[in-house]
């Protein structure tokens, strides 16, 4: 037990928690925007893959790191455009299209990777984002270590704040919340339900891709095929866990990251000697399912989530 306490009070543990939470926060915000507008985006897993790949490849080809982030975002938005075109004006099944987008995005990353690097056995490394040194803060004993984070992590938290502000404090956010509840309401007020939904999916997909790019540009320094490894699906669970509210979703991501960071460290302890390491690795997925069960029928789901809107349907 004392081993766990030691882990929990160490600053490096909390640094890891914040680092692990960052991509989850970015992608969860992306998914949350989509779902608040009434569109379930199951493309998230593949869009994170394409973000991880394009961001990394752009930097490998010589772009600056923020250029890589922008490329990833653009790639994500492109797949968001594909997803939203099929699901919003055409009203196709969000389940089927979402899975199709995930399959297509994942395959595109694999295809492009092999095309650009036909021979390599291990992927080349790039120089990733380095932890920022913040005057005053970085010198503090415990906090300095815990908050030794890259600019992309700080950006993730800023994005969460921006999403919350936009949703609850601006006319745009009001319209997004309305279109996820009743698209006819925004149409009757002279706004385009189709435009709002497509916009939300495109922007949301861009954020998912940046979440993916975090993995290659900040957390690790190269791209692996399996590196997203279900994080997208976990983010969908986090949106439910966060009751479709940005603040709660961020807390959920941090809680989740804490368990993930803990399981990595527990593998090194006496527990790790007794229990199979696969059980620790499965913990995030098991937790996600538990989170879904816990939140079932509690939250106010956007009423028009997964309900296509066809103008003038009779």
């Amino acid at each position, binding site marked *: 037990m004392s081993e766990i306490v030691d882990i929990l009070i160490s600053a490096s543990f909390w640094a890891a928690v914040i680092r692990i939470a960052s991509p989850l926060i970015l992608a969860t915000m992306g998914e949350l925007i989509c779902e608040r507008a009434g569109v379930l985006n199951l493309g998230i897993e593949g869009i994170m893959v394409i973000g991880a790949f394009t961001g990394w490849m752009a930097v490998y080809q010589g772009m600056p790191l923020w250029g890589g982030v922008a490329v990833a975002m653009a790639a994500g938005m492109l797949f968001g455009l594909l997803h939203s075109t099929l699901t919003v004006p055409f009203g196709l099944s969000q389940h089927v299209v979402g*899975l199709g987008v995930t399959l*297509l995005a994942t395959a595109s990353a*694999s295809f492009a990777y092999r095309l650009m690097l036909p021979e390599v056995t291990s992927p080349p490394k790039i120089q990733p984002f380095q932890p920022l040194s913040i005057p005053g803060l970085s010198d503090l004993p415990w906090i300095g270590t815990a908050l030794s984070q890259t600019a992309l992590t700080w950006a993730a938290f800023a994005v969460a704040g921006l999403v919350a502000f936009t949703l609850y404090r601006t006319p745009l956010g009001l319209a997004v919340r309305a279109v996820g509840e009743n698209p006819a309401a925004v149409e009757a007020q002279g706004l385009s339900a189709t435009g709002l939904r497509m916009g939300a999916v495109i922007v949301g997909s861009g954020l998912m891709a940046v979440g993916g790019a975090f993995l290659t540009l900040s957390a690790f320094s190269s791209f692996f095929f399996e590196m997203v490894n279900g994080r997208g699906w976990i983010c969908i*669970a986090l949106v439910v866990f966060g009751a479709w509210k940005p603040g709660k979703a961020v807390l959920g991501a941090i809680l989740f990251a804490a368990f993930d960071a803990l399981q990595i460290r527990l593998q090194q302890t006496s527990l790790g000697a007794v229990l*199979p390491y696969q059980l620790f690795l499965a913990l995030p997925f098991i937790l996600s399912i538990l989170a879904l*069960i816990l939140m079932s029928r509690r939250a106010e789901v956007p009423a028009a989530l997964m309900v296509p809107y066809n103008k003038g349907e009779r």
Partner: protein
Amino acid sequence: MRLEPIPNPSAARRLGLPALALVATLGVAMALALIAGANPLAVLGQIAKGALGSKLAILETLNRATPLIFTGLAVAVAFRAKLWNIGAEAQLYAGAIVAVLLGTGALGSPLVLPVSALAAMLAGAALLLGPVLLKTRLGVDEVVTTLLLNFIMLLFVSYLLEGPLKDPMGMGWPKSPALIPEARLPRIVDGLRLHWGFALAIIAAVVVWVIQTRTTLGFEIRAVGQNPEAARFAGMPVNTVLVKTALLSGGLAALAGWSEVAGLKGHLSSDLSPGFGYTGIIVAMLALLHPLGVILTAIFVAGIFVGSDAMSRAAGVPTYIADMLLATALLFMVLAILLTRVRVVRG
């Protein structure tokens, strides 16, 4: 723009648009070949030749199609009831595990094949039972739970292969011991590398088709899928129907893993399935969820994979072109199917 239903779509529209979707997919294939610096027509030709160009190629394609028929059926059955079972991958491994548990000496008589097949189906069904009960009892979305179970199952398989089911003779490779000969599915024709799993898959497709069109359960599954509210109002036990659908779907997916182990590989390893469960979604959607159509689309999809492998060796275009084509075909197809029923009008 606005979508307007077409009351009685013409046959040309109903057949032409899906055909157009396939042609468009071929167009994407050629574009990808160009990007890869290869001759587009040659690439298409090599894919076709690799899939169907020789007896060996055809058999390879049919072998590859076998698990896809099972997972395609699993998805088709579930999606028909709007039960979004994305967990065929995990259910496949459940079936594979059972094939190893019962096929490596635990059962030794001629009974071993039928018993292990049934047990495999039960295991796959049981695995989907959790998500479907969470859906019917608590309203938890089954898409996410079945997806997450796939990851948990892969880790579980990894644990088994490094622990309880590790092959002592495996020289450190994470694989299970080999099945005893009685537990192996024989080949359909001596000398030809095609096992009885393929025939079983065809039989399964026919059985599913009969269930869907001729039985009360099939009627219920379709009704629940199209309009659960009306089904409940008419007195159908909607949740029971969903559970029965899940059992059928999970059982079918499990047979995919069981037949791969018992028919093709003879042992379990963690690379048993290169995503057969997910590809099953494409197979089912391309077949418009029709059980007999699944046979054809599974062979088509398998042909793309087998052909792309061969083409990749020859033309140097990455083999992942197959995955891109199939995902594209899926998206084109769902759009084409929609446009058979509606037209796009202004305002």
